[in-house]
């Protein structure tokens, strides 16, 4: 961990502010002075009460949203909009319904102008990685929620980004499938040595997956704390029975409780 720290961060964001409808009566200060560094191989979860701007932060990091002020840099070079260094996995899957599993996974590569014969092996590799072999020619409507998100994850991996951004990827998936997906995602991350930023509102999910958790406050969204999860990988469902695991959950819950109370007082929850 110490070695990682001395390296330059893979993703760095500095004093990000996002203000919607600036200068208008319905102005919303969504992110306030948000700074952070993400290092290679980290699995970061961002957690906070609903409406705290965690999705806004992720969209800003992807480049879909231009921050009102502040900078984002990846490996030292500044970000101006979406590029191949980051890929996003969406909460509502956002798969093209008219494309097969194969074409959806190939989506980012095709947009980058790559020819089908050049990307074929890569696409099939990632389809296999998420366990969808044999489903290449199925359409999204023929798949279950869990399978759809596997396609979403494979699509993200296929462009081989430096950082994978996941926006509450399992919140639209049923409980049983979610636990299996969490374990699988961890396995894939370890194999592929990918850096991940993961948005969730589930404390359990955050503790189980992350090497570090970023806690955010109610609006305007600020980073209020960071917690390192010192439980070695690989983690399995048995990890959840460890006393340490429960302690982490308790700590984060105590923290979130305070934030949610503050939100109640503001009459927003």
């Amino acid at each position, binding site marked *: 961990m110490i070695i990682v720290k001395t390296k330059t961060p893979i993703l760095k964001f500095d004093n990000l502010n996002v203000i919607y409808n600036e200068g208008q009566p319905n102005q919303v200060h969504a992110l306030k002075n948000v700074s952070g560094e993400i290092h290679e191989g980290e699995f970061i979860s961002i957690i906070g009460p609903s409406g705290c701007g965690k999705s806004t932060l992720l969209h800003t990091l*992807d*480049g*879909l949203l231009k921050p009102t002020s502040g900078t984002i840099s990846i490996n030292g070079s500044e970000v101006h909009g*979406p*590029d*191949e260094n980051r*890929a*996003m996995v*969406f909460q*509502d899957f*956002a*798969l*093209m*319904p*008219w*494309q097969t599993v194969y074409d959806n996974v190939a*989506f*980012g590569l*095709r*947009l*980058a102008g790559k020819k089908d014969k050049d990307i074929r092996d890569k696409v099939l590799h990632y389809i296999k990685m998420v366990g969808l072999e044999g489903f290449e020619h199925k*359409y*999204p*409507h023929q798949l279950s929620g869990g399978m759809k998100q596997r396609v979403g994850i494979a*699509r993200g991996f296929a*462009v081989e980004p430096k950082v994978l951004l996941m926006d509450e990827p399992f919140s639209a998936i049923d409980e049983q499938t979610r636990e299996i997906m969490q374990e699988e995602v961890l396995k894939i991350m370890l194999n592929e040595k990918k850096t991940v930023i993961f948005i969730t509102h589930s404390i359990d999910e955050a503790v189980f997956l992350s090497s570090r958790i970023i806690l955010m406050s109610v609006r305007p969204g600020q980073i209020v704390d960071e917690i390192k999860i010192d439980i070695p990988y690989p983690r399995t469902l048995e990890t959840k029975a460890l006393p340490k695991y429960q302690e982490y959950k308790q700590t984060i819950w105590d923290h979130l409780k305070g934030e949610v109370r503050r939100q109640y007082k503001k009459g927003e929850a």
Partner: protein
Amino acid sequence: MQEVEVTKSLTSTMKKSTWKIPKSILYPSVTLLIILIIWEICGRLNLIDPFMFSWPSKIFTEAVAFFISAEVFTHLAVSGMEVGIGFAMALIGIPIGLAMGYWKNLELAFDPFVTALYTTPMIALTPLFVLWFGLDTLSKVMMVFALSIFPILINTMSGVKMTDPSLIKAARSYGASRGQMFKEVILPSAIPFIITGIRLAIGRALIAVVVAEMLAGNKGIGYAIRHASELFQTAQYLAYVAVLMVLSVLLTELLKLFEKKIAPWRNL
């Protein structure tokens, strides 16, 4: 997957033990048969005045007659050509609709007029079109065009506007350029709407050609209908209407097949 296969084999065994014809064909066929039988009985019992109306066997005899004399085919050829040309011209509504759905300013500038023209019963303009374009083919072609362009245009436009914003977001996130956004997201998501527009337009195109031919002309199905009715050949007249009915059902079914081919992701 196992479950799916089990249910599949279950339904196939069930099919074997009961019916081979799917319900979606069997049920309407039975309904149709019952109606035809009752109708025919009413005719045979002299409950129908052949001057005012007719019944299935009489209509069928007339139909057989004009099929044997090949008269129907000359009329069909003329009407078919008029609809074909007019409809092909109306497909210009697709690019116009795409543009209007994509550029908000174009929509703002033209949408009220498009809506007005769409909702106006433009069939009322037939005499004017005859005056402008003559008694021959051209006036019919123009009527077909005028009636069928708007449903195509309007549906295409709303298809573009209904594109799922989360798909647009995903495409943007994966670096889609403007052109790619159009080709990969907006156009495919508009296709089902375009097909719906074409389906509505087919109905209107048939109305246009028949009314225009009835009003002016000496060829085509519309003319044949008018001619038969003027001679009080009610059975023959209804036989031509039946031909039209069968034709529009066939065209609609053909379109459904076409849609399955180009939009297989839709759960039809």
